């Protein structure tokens, strides 16, 4: 009886150790890892942020064309798909990816963009090594909304009681989409939220297509463009209206 009890107690005590001994993919940390030693070595890890093209045959391939090998038992977070922004942790000794974070929210010290990944970690056929990207081309932060302001100056012959509207591609150019706010007798403005790094195409009207803006000679005006970057503010001018020359 005592032997049986001791055997069970021993089994319970050993069980967790046995469980740890079984190869088990590491669970991605919900918070970014500290810039400390990577699991396989005492050397600091290398962090690379980039856009995923695909994960296949033990490689993660960035949209730059560079491929990095994955650690054999690496657990790939669910939800990664073509175009996802990830941050990988590279072990300097193993030269493999030891962790993948999906949509990292903060930037870690020393983090590099996939366009500038140290070449010793990349595994591609020499002839296929990506061409250098134009300077400044990095993975854009495509999350969040940004407040932008559109300001327009109107012609002096605009009827004083008329409102000015913003007509954008988002509503398929509904001529009375957004009523603008009067700043003074010749200036209107409107503030709005746009997804970061998107481009808005827009025109100005007085509420109908018959009152859309035109160029000085009455020709069709190409839509104005606004890039949603922080503190974006336009200073547009309506040369004339379609119904008033």
């Amino acid at each position, binding site marked *: 009886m005592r032997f049986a009890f001791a055997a069970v107690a021993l089994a319970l005590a050993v069980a967790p150790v046995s469980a740890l001994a079984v190869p088990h993919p590491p669970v991605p940390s919900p918070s970014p890892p500290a810039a400390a030693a990577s699991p396989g070595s005492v050397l600091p890890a290398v962090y690379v942020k980039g*856009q995923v*093209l*695909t994960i*296949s*045959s033990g*490689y993660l391939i960035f949209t*730059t*064309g560079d491929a990095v090998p994955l650690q054999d038992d690496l657990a790939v977070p669910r939800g990664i*798909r*073509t*175009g*996802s922004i990830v941050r990988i942790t590279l072990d300097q000794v193993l030269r493999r990816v030891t962790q993948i974070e*999906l*949509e990292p929210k903060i930037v870690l010290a020393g983090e590099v963009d996939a366009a500038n990944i140290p070449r010793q970690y990349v595994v*591609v*056929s020499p*002839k*296929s090594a*990506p*061409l*250098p*990207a*134009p300077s400044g*081309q990095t993975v854009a932060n*495509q999350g969040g*909304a940004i*407040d932008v302001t559109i300001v327009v100056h109107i012609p*002096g012959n605009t009827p*004083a*009681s008329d409102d000015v509207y913003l*007509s*954008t*591609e*988002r*509503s*398929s*150019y*509904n001529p*009375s989409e*957004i009523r603008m*706010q009067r700043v*003074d*007798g*010749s200036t209107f403005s*409107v503030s709005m*939220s746009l*997804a970061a790094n*998107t481009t808005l*195409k827009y025109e100005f009207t007085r509420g*109908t*297509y*018959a009152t859309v803006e035109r160029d000085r*000679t*009455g*020709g*069709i005006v*190409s*839509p104005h463009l606004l890039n949603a970057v922080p503190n974006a503010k336009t200073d547009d001018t309506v040369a004339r209206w*379609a119904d008033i*020359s």
Partner: protein
Amino acid sequence: MSVLRKLAFAAVAWSFCTGVAFAEAMPSKVDVRADSVGFFPYANATLLAADGHVVVRTGTRTILGDAMRWDLQKNRLVVTGNVRIVGGPSEVDGVAYARNLATGEAYVVRIDPIPATFAVRYDDMSSAREGPAPPGYFDSVDLDGQRPYMRSHHAIVTPGGSVRMLPAEFPTAAGPSLTLPTYLYTLVQNQYIALSAAPAASFDQPYSLFGTPASLTAAHLRYDSTNGVTEALDNRLVDGDKAYLVTSVLPFRDSQFDLHAFEVIRPGLQQTLTATHLFGDPFVRDLLSYQLQESGKLLTQTIQFNQVGPSNSAEFDVGTYEHDIKHIFGYQLKASYGYDHNYGGFPYTNDYRVGGDALITAPPITIFNTNLTAKYEESFTAYDYPHEITTGTTTVTAGRKITPSVSLFAQVQFEQSDNHYSDLAVGRVALGLPPPGSPYYAPDGTPYPGYFAYSGLNTYRSYELQSTINGRGDDRVQLTMYYNHDFPQFHGYGPAPLYVSLDIVRRITPSLRIEVGRSYSFGWDRQYLSPQYTFGISP
């Protein structure tokens, strides 16, 4: 011409005719099927994304893969996963494939045994050569956390034309999705492809039916406070930034037909045609207007013809542009000569008129952080029939930002109109005013004064004060007060003496913005508190 030169000429001509010597033609239709196909028109690119058992059919080619991202503006298609392209000269396979549909240029990434990139022409793997793709060729849009505008299992794409989903499911932030049997989204990058010639409405939801790279036919569900819920059908034809033609039909309530056409004949010379047929109006059934305008270096000249029912008119205008005399004032001048043919002969069957208009604007100035503007406009029209109208209008505005989120705007306008007749004996008949012995009655029941109110001189004074509180992004609360003081001022006619409106704009979701308005007019038309609602939705 020697035989060799003839052959060379024929070869060059042939290459121009076929145009396929070095580039494949853009496919006219592409069929996409997958476990999930999503359309993202606002995600920094117009993107069609497919995931799970992706099958893309274009011409004789079939592209198979696990995921697809198609930038419909750049015409670049990226397929990843277990990629296979069949139907070409030889089968292509790999883990990623990117193709520029406009040029036919394609790259495939294979792992054999390490990753390598190959340039592929005509989807023929036997002629592939290893080499890197140009930077950014495989770039895509990060769709994590983004909701598609619509989704389906099947999409048909006309590159440069449209995306049609069958069926089309429209996911919402909360609650069930809206599903339609089919939906067509136009890809035409021309703002006039969405033009509607129908009257303005406070809500207008188009439902595209058919589309090509140069046309779009759509049904509309509309709402306006006068007619309530109505339907419309319209068709647009566009020719770049040179011309467009739109026809709209409101077949049911308030039924009417509208046509609007515009063409830039050459830079500076354009013509416009608008026409309206009102099915239900017993008096004026047809309106037609044609305008030919030339804008030169100094002047703008316009010839226009108008038809209103059985009456018509023609006019020639010449005017300057707005000129600014630096730091002093700006001005614009116009002159016109016109002819009116009046049905019924009142006052004359044929009448001629001359007109003039002068606009003077003061440059905006800032005093005590307040932006001030002022302008004065004087216009006159003199008819062969002894009738002259002279109008002078002065407008002064002031705008001030009190805090970063609170601003005020004030506008004062005075208008003096002198409307007189040299021959009152004829004028009495022609004016259309009620005879003195049988006056009309105003909406509040008082007798409309008719002739006795006519003084020849009218004065209109309007005062407007607007205060705005801006929140984050689009959010806004705006209170506007109007005070109108006219002479003579008739009960129930013209603007109400006191009018107040409150507008609240709130962005509910990233793709839904709501504007609710409430307004009151006081002491007018027997209603001392007459509320009105306005409601608008925009993306």
